[in-house]
């Protein structure tokens, strides 16, 4: 399969998964809430193209796209959202709290940044692998982010901070949230920074490759800032943005852009493969048993 076809399929898998999540909510299939990755697919796919087996990914509340791009199993993710025993974390975590292989996500903004930075410390000590930390523009309001950037830079830790600037912190636009420049916030700690358009897969892949080469060669942390837009609401029913604004950004859909480069027949074939995969994953997850209260274990045992 050509790279272009692979990329299209990877992005479409995320798109269809997230669309299905939003479509299925009204059926009462899920517990809690969710934060979809619609519109931001090219970032996860482009950045994690460079993720090797020994690398680590630390994600946030909007984690499904990162998880799928990392290679996480779709059925287990669907099952986790549905609170099934076969879920990624047996139904304990739900949409935001995933741990799988070297992938970790959690639900409170900012706190994942020191977590990932500490993992990079361990990677450096072992001489193996780097860490990808995904954060949004909203998380830049948390002070612990800057504490982490400072130490990551002081200790030259192998970590790439990927900022997905989707212009909104929940419902609040970035103009009301963030003073000064995005780039400057990283440059202040002497991190190399690349800024890219978040719908341009190749630009994302190239810029992250450049930064990752530096990180792998021991030059310390770096930041990739991606300008993007989420097509869906922050979670599910809380979208107050101007519909015209959304429509304008939808015209710059990364999926439409990549699809243009593919023969129509190929695109349709991939579309069908992905539709089938997503439908099957949700059907299987729905037929899986609910998580069993018997599976609950105490968080600490008595040590003898």
């Amino acid at each position, binding site marked *: 399969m050509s790279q272009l076809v692979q990329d299209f399929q990877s992005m479409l898998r995320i798109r269809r998964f997230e669309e299905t999540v939003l479509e299925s909510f009204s059926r009462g299939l899920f517990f809690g809430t969710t934060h979809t990755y619609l519109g931001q697919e090219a970032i996860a796919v482009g950045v994690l193209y460079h993720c090797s087996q020994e690398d*680590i990914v630390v994600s946030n509340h909007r984690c499904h796209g990162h998880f799928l791009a990392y290679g996480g199993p779709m059925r287990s993710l669907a099952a986790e959202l549905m609170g099934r025993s076969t879920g990624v*974390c*047996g139904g*304990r*975590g739900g949409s935001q*709290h995933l*741990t799988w292989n070297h992938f*970790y996500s*959690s639900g*409170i903004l*900012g*706190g994942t*940044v*020191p*977590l*990932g*930075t*500490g*993992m*990079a*410390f*361990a*990677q450096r*000590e*072992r001489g193996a692998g780097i860490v990808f930390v995904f954060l949004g523009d909203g998380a830049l309001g948390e*002070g*612990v982010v800057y*504490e*982490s950037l*400072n*130490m990551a830079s*002081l*200790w030259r830790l192998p970590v790439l901070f990927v900022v997905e600037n989707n212009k909104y912190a929940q419902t609040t636009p970035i103009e009301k949230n963030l003073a000064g420049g995005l780039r400057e916030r990283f440059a202040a700690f002497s991190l190399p920074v690349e800024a890219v358009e978040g719908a341009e897969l190749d630009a994302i892949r190239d810029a992250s490759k450049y930064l990752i080469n530096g990180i792998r060669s021991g030059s310390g942390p770096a930041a990739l800032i991606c300008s993007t837009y989420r097509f869906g609401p922050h979670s599910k029913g809380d979208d107050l943005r101007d519909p015209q604004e959304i429509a304008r950004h939808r015209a710059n859909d990364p999926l439409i852009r990549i699809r243009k480069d593919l023969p129509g027949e190929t695109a349709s074939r991939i579309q069908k493969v992905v539709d089938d995969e997503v439908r099957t994953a949700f059907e299987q997850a729905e037929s899986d048993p609910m998580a069993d209260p018997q599976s609950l*274990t105490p*968080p*600490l045992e*008595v*040590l*003898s």
Partner: protein
Amino acid sequence: MTTVLESLNQGLRSCLEESQEVYLLGEDILDPYGGAFKVTRGLSTSFPERVITTPISEAGFIGISTGMAVRGLRPVVEIMFGDFLTLAADQLVNYAAKLRWMSVDEVRVPLVVRTPMGGRRGYGPTHSQSLEKHFLGIPGLRVLALHHCLSPAETIRSAVLRDNDPVLFIEHKLSYGLDVWDEGSAGEFHIEQSAGLYPEVRITLAEAPQPLVTIAAYGYAVHLALEAVRELGYGHEVFAEVVAPTQLSPARTDGLAGHVRRTRRLVTVEEASGEFGWGTELIASLSLAGLDGFRVNRVAAMDMPIPASGPLEKAVLPQVEDIVSAVLDVC
């Protein structure tokens, strides 16, 4: 004799010697300063690669240490004053304590956060508190408190080398200068130690009759309680035992319940303010365990911030005479 401070320092040194995975992180912990209370003195000289000074970023470096622990290292963090723990509450409560359970035991977090708590040195409202009570009862976080009747070196070694879960390790500032007691050096006292990685000790006056009252205390309050036991025994002929857990949370009250079943009297002693505190939880647990009709009293700080001035601080924090009168009240 070895002081608590020396014992802790030796314990940390032996951890660094025995495991390449042990790292110490904290503010101003490098030589020649060796930490605000000198617990890490000499260690950065011997282990320069693994003793790391940090910026003043408690949330950041507890979070970073959590990430290190998730990936197989054994970080030991020093928080200069326990009062500063609130800065890192999110990292402890929402990350360190939850990662193992959320991942169905896929992830382990062998992190130790050490910190000095307590007053009696005139440091005033923000450098004298015993904030550990706010970290008790957090599922997934173990809270330990050292005291001078159990080897601090062994206690810290257990937490650093043998515990694979996050530990908040409380050290009272005034404990540092006390001599460590064992059975041979406890003078007129007799010390018994329970089984387990984090034993509970029971201390009585040797040669005294069966105790009439059980005093539960941890940390430096163990020292105060023993002073009270001495005064009660010699001055009032009231004999008391002190039961001192090392593990505060999750609470394990089986041993204590056994003692109180016998004495029918319990006095809890803690240096934090009493409302919603450690003693309250012990009393509730014993009631729920089916003990009824036992008399209780609770000794704690007054419910207000801790003042700096000597006489004011003394009035707010529990003293030996408060323990003595609390015991006499239930006898």
